[in-house]
């Protein structure tokens, strides 16, 4: 599957080149400050693991990068140019694709329709010109098979696939349509052990193909398996920002489990 990913990956990407840079980015919703002073760099061929508990600001962070919300403090640069996205389409046009945990696919629609959703192949430029349905089905089927996903029937509603397969279809779709930055929002949260493994392999494969990956999770074990750089968010601020070489799994786990608060709590609860 690495082959497939490299086939579609942007050949101009060079390892370590910064694709997305966030400097001192913040976001407030009315009086509520969801994110403050975030510095984050997504580099080609690297996985940046963003960890945090519920409400830590993970979702806000990815919504800014993926164009669902725009930031109101600091700067966001893509390929060195400052940008402010007003729709997910703009982010997609910059090669930033996001795979959401809960809203990756439209479950009642067929697999091939989902695969091409938003990037349909049409036979003409008119709004009502027909789609190349046969070709779309063939490509969707081939691309999924190359990645090791064999669906029973390319015409079946995607809701009938397992959670892991749905995530993989969404990742395969993002890569096929030329994503340079892949944002994975808790891709393993609802999955079993085996299926998580499949998704993690895809993540690694995307990284090896030279894509910049942002991996959002609250599972430090999954983050540690694939990430090159770790950021832990707490109450909208980064409390840890280290390279893989500078941090141990124990520290990540401790921070995620509550870190210092937990130590304090264990003192208080001591009998």
């Amino acid at each position, binding site marked *: *599957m690495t082959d497939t990913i490299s086939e579609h990956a942007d050949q101009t990407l060079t390892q370590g080149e910064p694709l997305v840079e966030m400097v001192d980015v913040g976001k407030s919703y009315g009086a509520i400050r969801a994110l403050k002073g975030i510095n984050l760099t997504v580099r080609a061929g690297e996985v940046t693991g963003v960890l945090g508990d519920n409400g830590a600001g993970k979702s806000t962070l990815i919504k800014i990068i993926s164009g669902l919300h725009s930031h109101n403090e600091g700067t966001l640069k893509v390929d060195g140019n400052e940008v402010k996205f007003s729709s997910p389409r703009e982010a*997609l046009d910059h090669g930033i694709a996001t795979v959401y945990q809960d809203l990756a696919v439209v479950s009642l629609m067929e697999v091939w*329709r989902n695969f091409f*959703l*938003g990037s*349909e192949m049409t036979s003409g430029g008119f709004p*009502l010109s027909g789609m190349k349905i046969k070709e779309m089905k063939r490509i969707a089927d081939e691309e999924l098979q190359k990645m090791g996903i064999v669906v029973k*029937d390319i015409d079946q509603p995607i809701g009938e696939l397992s959670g892991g397969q749905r995530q993989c279809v969404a990742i395969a779709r993002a890569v096929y349509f030329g994503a340079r930055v892949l944002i994975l929002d808790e891709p393993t949260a609802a999955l079993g052990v085996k299926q998580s493994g499949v998704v993690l*392999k895809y993540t690694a494969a995307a990284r090896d193909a030279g894509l910049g990956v942002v991996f959002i999770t609250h599972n430090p074990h999954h983050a540690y398996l694939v990430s090159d750089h770790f950021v832990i968010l707490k109450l909208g601020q980064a409390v840890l920002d280290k390279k893989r070489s500078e941090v141990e799994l124990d520290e990540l786990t401790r921070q995620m489990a509550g870190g210092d608060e937990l130590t304090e709590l264990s003192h208080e609860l001591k009998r």
Partner: protein
Amino acid sequence: MSQTSQKPSVGAPSEASNRVQLSAFNRVLARPEIGALVAAIVIGIFFLIVAPPFRSADSLATVLYQSATIGIVAVGVGMLMIGGEFDLSAGVMVTSAGLVNAIFCFEYGINLWVGAVLSLLFALGVGFLNGYLVMKTGIASFLITLGSFFVLIGVNLGVTKLVTGSVTTSNINQMDGYSQLHAIFASTFTIGGVTVSIIVLWWFLFVAIATWVLQRTKIGNWIFAVGGNSASARAVGVPVLKVKVGLFMTVSFLAWFMGMHTLYRFNTLQSGNGIGNEFLYIIAAVVGGTLLTGGYGNAIGVAIGSFIFGMTNLCIVYAGWDPNWFRAFLGVMLLLAVLVNLYVKKLSTARKVG
């Protein structure tokens, strides 16, 4: 990591033997309109037995006409429901569109074409407003269009009374442009001795276009997506606002079209007409297999739903029963058709998984 990832993945079922090819029978069963088709055939056979006058080509033409009067707007309402929204104002909008044309042209004595275009702009404007308000406020379309439904009822009656002094518009059949517009919207033609209204052809055309759009075009893909899961659709770059506003405007366009037919067929309009038809459109769509929550359905199904309506409506008369029973009968038909739908869908999906 890169070495392990080159092996076939362990977790995903990758054996080709896992593939199944559904039998043609099951694939047919899985289509949204199949329940309605079964219901239509059963009801049709029933009325062929109990209502002898139904067994003629003339009756079929009349049934088709009756079906088209609901079916044209129902096609739009069905597409809108697949897109996940409701429009309760569609029934009254038919009357509003006709009234705008009739009153404006009669009062100013100008060519009816001007009024028809003005009325189209008015209807599209109302549709745009419905859609835009739903999308921008996030309030359920049920409530927004319930509001516009009542506004339109009031305005229809109020303005007509104010301008003409009665609740009926003046006859327009002597005005400029009448014959052309009548030919387009309300003429009839004879085929093998049977008189058929042109509106039936328009209905078939709209159903064909809607089927093409839903099944074969990019926009159709987007309609299913915004109805099935609008957040997902937005995240992959589907212009959700445009699609939904466009659907509301499609409904109001078709309501305008029906309004033109009503006006040019009867030449005068009762300003209180159209109330209650919005439910008939929704019934036709639901009977035709459209999912009430959006994301599933098709235009053929909606057409069959409209046909069941037209057939029941007239065959009660053909059978010599008191027509007052029609709505009770329609309600029973609706429940039966929905149950058949549900049963068939369960049957088909159960086999599909197993």
